[in-house]
């Protein structure tokens, strides 16, 4: 049938093309990205709230502002999972046989980071957490071997995937605890409703060998930390609705809470400053800096956007810089290199803004980045 249509048409076109059909332009094959990832790249994840069956993630080069490509990532998309060497892209995804209904299938899709093409998938239990995205709903162990995905049905559990063998290992009940906070090659922590961390230990097959509940490290009835904790070396840095910082050293099975401190001075607190947003924290490891998205607001504004990023020295536990953003923001991220970029986006206005993370200087914007962009990831 195909040929039937093609040939008559070629003839039909001949009078138009005339003798000019000599050397048509060669259409190169689809773009392949460089083998070396650029630390100034950023993935912008989009849940597409009004059309949740069509999740997407967009790759942008922070230096040039160029849009490099995208992935189609299914229904209720949260975020990618990027291994430390960026040799693969893993994506926990949900599909229904009839778009929004029918049989649900959850998969981890493996993408080639140069070709942005699926290279395989692992089917996992159809229980992946459906929620407003944060980066702590799935994570990779420190040696990049296992991916752990948080489930909520509303029973709580995790699914563990062997990334090397491309195999689903097992689902393990984690009742009472949520999030996935990696803390070693064979260990991760989860945050429990009572304000404690649970330590989960794996064997070399990825099977859970031990679950240990620990003592609460904050008062879960008065000063809730957000789900958006960030990792600084072997320390997870939790920040509460009220701007208190709770660092927890996870280098051993028994988490070691550090001394709590506040993002806010007496005066700033009086002026109702507080952290807020969907992704309100970022860490730059090299300089031991914490970036915190801030706004002025009362109780219950912990997810409001901000236009200020305050920077803290995590070692000295003190504020070192204030950056005024060009626009309101609900998500910030910092690149991992030693000339870091600060990325910012607002879920209600999909323009990615790029700053020099050291000076705070506004560099450039990239517009038309999705519909409701949520969280940012840097390789």
């Amino acid at each position, binding site marked *: 049938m195909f040929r039937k249509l093609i040939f008559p048409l070629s003839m039909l076109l001949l009078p138009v093309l005339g003798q000019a059909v000599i050397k048509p332009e060669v259409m190169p094959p689809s773009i392949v990205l460089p083998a070396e990832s650029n630390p100034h790249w950023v993935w912008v994840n989009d849940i597409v709230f009004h059309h949740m069956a069509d999740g997407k993630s967009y790759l942008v080069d922070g230096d040039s502002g160029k849009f490099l490509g995208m992935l189609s990532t299914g229904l209720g998309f949260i975020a990618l999972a990027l291994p430390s060497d960026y040799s693969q892209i893993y994506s926990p995804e949900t599909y229904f046989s009839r778009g929004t*209904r029918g049989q649900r299938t959850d998969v981890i899709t493996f993408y080639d980071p140069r070709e942005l093409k699926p290279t395989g998938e692992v089917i996992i239990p159809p229980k992946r957490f459906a929620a407003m995205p944060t980066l702590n709903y799935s994570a990779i162990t420190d040696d990049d071997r296992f991916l752990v995905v948080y489930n909520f049905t509303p029973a709580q559990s995790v699914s563990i995937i062997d990334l090397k063998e491309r195999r689903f290992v097992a689902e393990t009940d984690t009742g009472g605890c949520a999030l996935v906070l990696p803390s070693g090659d064979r260990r991760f922590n989860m*945050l429990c409703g009572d304000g404690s961390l649970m330590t989960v230990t794996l064997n070399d097959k990825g099977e859970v060998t031990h679950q240990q509940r620990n003592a609460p490290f904050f008062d879960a009835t008065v000063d809730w930390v957000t789900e958006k904790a960030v990792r600084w070396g072997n320390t997870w840095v939790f920040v509460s609705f009220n701007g208190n910082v709770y660092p927890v050293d996870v280098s051993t099975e028994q988490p070691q809470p550090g001394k709590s401190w506040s993002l806010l001075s007496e005066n700033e607190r009086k002026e109702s400053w507080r952290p807020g947003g969907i992704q309100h924290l970022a860490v730059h490891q090299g300089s031991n800096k914490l970036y915190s998205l801030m706004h002025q607001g009362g109780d*219950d504004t912990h997810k409001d956007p901000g236009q200020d990023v305050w920077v803290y020295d995590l070692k000295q536990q003190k504020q070192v810089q204030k950056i005024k953003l060009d626009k309101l923001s609900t998500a910030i991220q910092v690149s991992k290199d030693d000339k870091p970029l600060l990325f910012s986006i607002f879920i209600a206005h999909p323009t990615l803004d790029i700053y020099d993370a050291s000076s705070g200087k506004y560099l450039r914007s990239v517009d038309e980045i999705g519909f409701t962009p949520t969280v940012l990831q840097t390789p």
Partner: protein
Amino acid sequence: MKWLDKFSENSARSIARQSSRRSFIAKVGTLMVGTAAVPLLPVARANESSRPDAPSETGDPESCDYWRYCAIDGFLCDCCGGSYNTCPPGTTVSPITWIGTCTNPVDGKDYIISYNDCCGKSSCGRCLCNTNKGDRPVYQPFQSNDINWCAGSTVDVSYNCSTAVVLGLAVADS
């Protein structure tokens, strides 16, 4: 509210309604409905007038400011073919959800509100409203509005809209 104005200013195709008393990100930044361990359905079908603690209604249930919506997150079912306490045609209610406490402007009393999601179709896309009143992080799931509570429905996580159902009168701890 300045930033909300800013957003509305440059967007006709706004993804959220304005609300005079609600924070925004709010309206966009968080999704869904929370938790109520109390099974709402089925309950004996009491005649409306016979319920001793049925609050008086006032206001527009298609407005984010309607009193029951003091802690809602999502598209108002009242704008989507349902009502403030009823799912639109073809959607299925999530039996569990999260609750808020809202003050009825007529009698000044506080009521426990359950924000049940209606599920099984794509987002309705109309009357996006949200506040985070009383919202807690997802590790305290039954107090978190970040969670898509359609996960607990028989038709799974496709989220269409949210209702606001009065569970009863709230009695302060104090």
